[in-house]
């Protein structure tokens, strides 16, 4: 199982702040997960529509599309940050 978190407009578009997912296969990357999630429904499709505007963190560290996921990971998706 992995935990998936959504922030800002990814949360609004998916309608979820958190969901869990059984990792379908070993070796799955962040990019693979995005493809899987984008096919889950119209909200998810809208959230991941423009993948260049989606950032990812795995276990609270910034991650890139090639990062390999493991069971127990916390994967967060969010827009480019705008604090400060």
């Amino acid at each position, binding site marked *: 199982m992995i935990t998936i978190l959504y922030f*800002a407009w990814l949360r609004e578009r998916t309608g979820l702040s958190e969901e869990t997912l059984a990792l379908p296969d070993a070796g799955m990357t962040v990019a693979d997960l995005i493809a899987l999630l984008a096919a889950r429904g119209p909200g998810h499709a809208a959230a991941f529509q423009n993948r260049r505007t989606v950032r990812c963190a795995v276990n609270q560290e910034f991650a890139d599309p090639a990062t390999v996921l493991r069971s127990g990971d916390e994967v*967060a998706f969010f827009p480019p940050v*705008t*604090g400060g």
Partner: protein
Amino acid sequence: MARILVSEADFDVGAEIALLTAGRTDIGGIGCFIGTVRDAVPQADAPVVSALTLEHYPAMTERAIGRIVAEAERRWTLLGCTVIHRVGRLAPGENIVLVLAASAHRQAALDATAFLIDWLKTKAPFWKREEFIDGASAWVEAKDSDDAAAERWT
């Protein structure tokens, strides 16, 4: 050594400086930046923003700020450092963020202050949503100029 805080409550700049410098006589300069909520958006002359809401990723935020501070401490000889970032709903004029950097020399204090706010803007998990006086609201978009400012330091 660094004080990192993410909070809904406001901060007291004078009290934070006192905390940073208490009992110290080796500090020559303290750089400081305070970010505040503006009611005007760049595209308009008139006040249009009625409130700003800051969302963040609680489990990651303080860790991300800690990494930014550690990088500042690696680049400059700092004698103390404070980063406080507010979250929640803020009105125009309210404080958003405080950065303090103390050093023996002013250039290190000023450069570290500029570095910390540039990197906070691009590497800490905060997102701003603006509410406008006409009732609309929108997520603030990341600015290329912020990416450029952060890139200056690499």
